[in-house]
Every structure is written in structure tokens, then in C-alpha cells.
């Protein structure tokens, strides 16, 4: 009927089809170029064939390492996820506390907001030596690098969201007798919670990036460590599945956050029609 394109919606199947399309395209591209390169040089390591990758994945994911008796992939995943989880947790708490603080309380804003703005602009990689001296080289420093990497973003984003709460709602809470703390718990927190989840989702990419960088500098296990280790041999048959695996993990987290948002914030869906 010539409807405007903004009013035309694909069905369930259609959405699946269109969603899968770009992935398929990438896959086809990969297979083609891999075959081309391998035809020229059967030992090419840059774009290994799927069979090679499958062998490597089998070895990484199912054969215990002779030295440590651990299965590498799972051991790496466990340590990386622990670091990442801790980093995200701490960043979230900082983002929430400082974000609400700077967004809501003028004095805190005056004191912290320029500092945090500047902090968020310092490239952490450039001051690594200082960070390592201050925080040591063990687990702490990796978590700290994640926190330094994403917490300022979360703080600033949260502050912006808090400032965007309509002033009527804050005023009304005060006429209902709320003190500052109650305004935080009953109005500000639930209002910015869904935005926090969204911001966290947007920070997942950077968080992994910082984790990998941290693990590449000082670690003895972890997904980033393994990638760093084999990178010198250009072992793309290890790197690619690791990257896919990292992306998959990140995607699951992304999905979980979205799901949590829907469950914890029913008002977002109700009445939106």
C-alpha cells in the first residue's frame, strides 16, 4: 500500500532473516578470501581454513593442557571473567554513586564534574607505568585499568541522565516530604537504573578492550593473555576463535543486561503500546 518505510515492520521470520544476513555476508567473505590465500600459500596463517580452526578449537577447549592439567580455554575464560566482572561491578558502583552525586548535588557537581571530565579524557594507556607502580602488577591493577577505562564514562553519562530528570518530579518529591536520600532511593535510582543498564551495555566493548590490554601487559592467564602470547606467531587459528568467543561472551552479557532491564523495570514496556 506504499506505506512509509518507518511504518513497515518485518515479521518474526523476516527479522531473523535480515538480522542473519550481514553475518552470513561476513562469513562468505571470510571463506572466499581464506580459500584464495590458502590456494596461493597453503601455509598461510592469516586466514586459516575452518578445518584448521576447528582442530585448534578442539585442542583449546577439550584437551587438558599437559603442563597444568587445565583446559586452556576454560581456565582463561574463568580468570578473564572474574577480572571483568569485578571491574564492571566496581565501575557500576562508582558510576552510580558519583553519577548521582554530581548530577543531583550542586556542590558535588562543582567539585567533581570538571575533574571527572578531565579524568575521562586522560588516555590510561599512556600513564600505565604510574598506574602499575600505584596499584601493583597483580589482579588489582587489571581491575583498576578496567575501572579507570570505563568508570568516568559511566559517571558522566549517569550525571547527564540525572540532570535530565524533569525538575517537576524532583520538586514534587520534596512537597511529599522526601529528604535528599529518599529522593535518591525512590526517584533518582529507579529513573536512571534503566539508563545505567544501557550505558553498561555500551561500555562492554571498552571494558573487554581494557581487560585484554591489561592482560597483555602483565598476566599469566586470561583470554587477552593467550591472544597476546600467540600473536607473535600470528596464530590466527587461535586468535580468531578467541575473538569470537570473547564477542559471544560479551553478547551474552549484553543480552542479560537487556533482559534484566526488562524484568526489573516493567514500566518501560507497559503502556508504551
Amino acid at each position, binding site marked *: 500500500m506504499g506505506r512509509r518505510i518507518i511504518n513497515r515492520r518485518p515479521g518474526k521470520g523476516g527479522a531473523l532473516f535480515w538480522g542473519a544476513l550481514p553475518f552470513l555476508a561476513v562469513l562468505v567473505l571470510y571463506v572466499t578470501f581464506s580459500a584464495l590465500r590458502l590456494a596461493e600459500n597453503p601455509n598461510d596463517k*592469516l586466514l586459516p581454513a575452518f578445518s584448521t580452526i576447528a582442530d585448534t578449537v578442539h585442542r583449546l577447549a577439550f584437551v587438558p593442557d599437559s603442563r597444568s592439567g587445565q583446559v586452556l580455554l576454560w581456565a582463561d575464560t574463568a580468570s578473564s571473567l572474574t577480572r571483568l566482572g569485578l571491574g564492571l561491578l566496581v565501575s557500576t558502583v562508582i558510576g552510580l554513586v558519583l553519577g548521582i552525586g554530581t548530577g543531583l548535588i550542586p556542590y558535588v557537581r562543582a567539585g567533581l564534574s570538571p575533574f571527572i571530565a578531565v579524568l575521562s579524557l586522560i588516555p590510561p594507556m599512556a600513564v600505565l607505568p604510574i598506574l602499575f607502580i600505584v596499584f601493583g602488577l597483580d589482579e588489582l591493577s587489571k581491575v583498576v585499568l578496567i575501572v579507570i577505562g570505563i568508570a568516568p564514562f559511566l559517571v558522566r553519562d549517569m550525571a547527564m541522565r540525572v540532570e535530565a530528570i524533569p525538575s517537576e518530579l524532583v520538586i514534587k518529591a520534596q512537597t511529599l516530604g522526601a529528604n535528599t536520600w529518599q529522593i535518591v532511593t525512590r526517584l533518582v535510582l529507579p529513573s536512571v537504573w534503566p539508563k545505567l543498564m544501557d550505558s553498561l551495555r555500551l561500555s562492554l566493548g571498552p571494558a573487554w578492550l581494557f581487560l585484554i590490554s591489561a592482560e*597483555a*601487559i602483565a598476566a599469566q592467564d586470561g583470554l587477552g*593473555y593467550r591472544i*597476546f602470547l600467540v600473536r607473535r606467531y600470528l596464530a590466527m587459528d587461535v586468535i580468531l576463535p578467541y575473538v569470537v568467543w570473547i564477542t559471544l561472551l560479551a553478547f551474552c552479557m549484553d543480552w542479560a543486561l537487556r533482559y534484566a532491564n526488562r524484568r526489573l523495570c516493567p514500566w518501560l514496556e507497559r503502556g508504551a503500546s
Partner: protein
Amino acid sequence: LSAEKKDFKVAWSIYAGWMPWGYAADSGLMKKWADKYGISVEIVQINDYVESINQYTAGAFDGCVMTNMDALTIPAAGGVDSTSLISGDFSNGNDGIVLKKGKTVADLKGQKINLVELSVSHYLLARALDTVKLKEKDVSVVNTSDADIVSVFTSSADSTAVVTWNPQLAEVSAVKGATKVFDSSKIPGEIIDLMVVNSATLKDNPKLGKALVGVWYEMMAKMEAGDQGMLEAMAKASGTDLAGYKAQLVTTKMFYKPADAVTFTTSAQLPKTMDMVRSFSFEHGLLGEGAKTKDAVGIAFPGGKTIGDAKNVKLRFDAEFMKLAADGKL
């Protein structure tokens, strides 16, 4: 300033000649030797080589593995009086120059060369250019991180020449049509891999030196004997397999016997080598802006010989502890 203490930390990073340190930590040999001297030594693996030296220089570690050139330009130039406790090996083909276009060093002229600037690769390049009377001005140097050098050379047509070390060197040499035109076997004994410790700490705590040297030569003996378990563990830890690791060892001149290391360290060649290294470092500003001549930082050798400012000796080559090992007194 440093007093006697019990707990020490040394850092190491992944490189063919340094893999035994990882094995020492994992196998418990380090603990054995530390216990013997009533101290504890923690061996920490740091993946980023430069970061490990930086951390040592900043005081986070009592010792660290590094090359002779980095020992001069980072801790010594940074005012941290450092002592080379162990001369573990020298690069005998472990560092090299690989070209896609051209077959000789002279072909480097005018090319863009990917390498880690100001590292031993850079030094190797300078020495190679010397051999054909070229100057650094005749080439153009592109700073490229060591982790990316293989992918840069393999995947990009823009990259036609690289200088790097193993295992990256083996990977880039294997690229179709690539030629290795120069390697460190042509300048033997100039790129030396050391265990460096803080001089003051060592002076106050000779036990640390004894424990480190002791464990090192126990492992060297095992390695020389071809201990399969040890070699395999080290291969794995460096991210390759036994064959790959052995290939790297071929181009590394390990001093398995302490006596050989002592001979090397006390030889008259070492001061000459270090003089070349410090000249290079000075020309590239690596001795710091305060350094007006290459003599700014003094270097001491066994037997009391020094080069450079004798009042500002910051790098000391020591053979005493290795001698103890050679004499079986540990």
C-alpha cells in the same frame, strides 16, 4: 639506603633465553634455592618487556631480565645503579633484518623499515647499515610494536622491511619471497641477555645473588642435558611447541656452563661492545637530555675497569657470583 631484607621480587618476560625463569618459578626450583639461603624470591612474569624494565627502574622489583643496551638506557640512565648478575646468553641470529624487496643490506636504502625504535633491533639496524656504509638518514624508520610486527609484515603490502627478534623473526622470514639479509650472528656477543639486579640491594643481600645464580645454573645443566620435561614446559609457556622452541634456541648462544659466562663477562671484548652500544644510545638521545657526552653514564667491568664517568657508575657487570657457581661454591 636499602637494608637487609628477606623477600625479593624479580621480573621476567617471555623470550627464548629467559624461559628458564618461568620454569624456575613453576617447578619450585626457585623456592628450593631461596629456602637454601633463607630468603624468598618471587618470580613475576610480565608480558610487556618494556613495562617490566620500567617497573624495575621505578623500584617495583629487585631484579629484572633485559638486554645490555636496555640495561644501560633505562635503569642506568635513570639513575638506578644496576648490576648485571648473570650473562645468560647472547643473540646469535635471534635478531635479524628481513626484506621483501631486495637480497642484501644495501637494498635497505630508501626503504621504510618497521621495527621497534630505540630497541636492540634499532641497534642491529645501525650496525648493519655500518657494514655497507649507509647512514640512518638513508632509510626511514617506522616504529612498530613488537606484537604487531608479524601481522604488519605478513598482511600489508606497505611493509617491505622489518627488523625484529625471535619468535617474530622466524615468522617473518617464512613469508613467501622474504629474505633475511642480516642477523645478529654477524655481530656475535653484542646483544646480550642479562639478569640485572639493583646494585644496592645486591650489596646488602648477597644471598639474593647466590640464590638466583644457583637456580639459574641448575636449570642450565638440565637444559644442556636436554631435559624433555623442562624443554616442553618452556616451549608451551612461550606459546609454541618443542620444535619451535628448539629452533629459537639454535640462534641463541646460551652459556650453559658458568665458566663460559665468566669468560665472556670478563673478556676484553665486552667493554668494546658496550662502548658501541653507548655511542648508539647517546646518538639517539637514550642517555637522557642531561647527557652532554656519551660518557655521562659510567659502566664498570669485572676487574675494576670502567668506561665513561667513573663518578657516575650506574651499570656494573659482575662475574663474582657466576664464578662462585663455576667453582661449585653455591
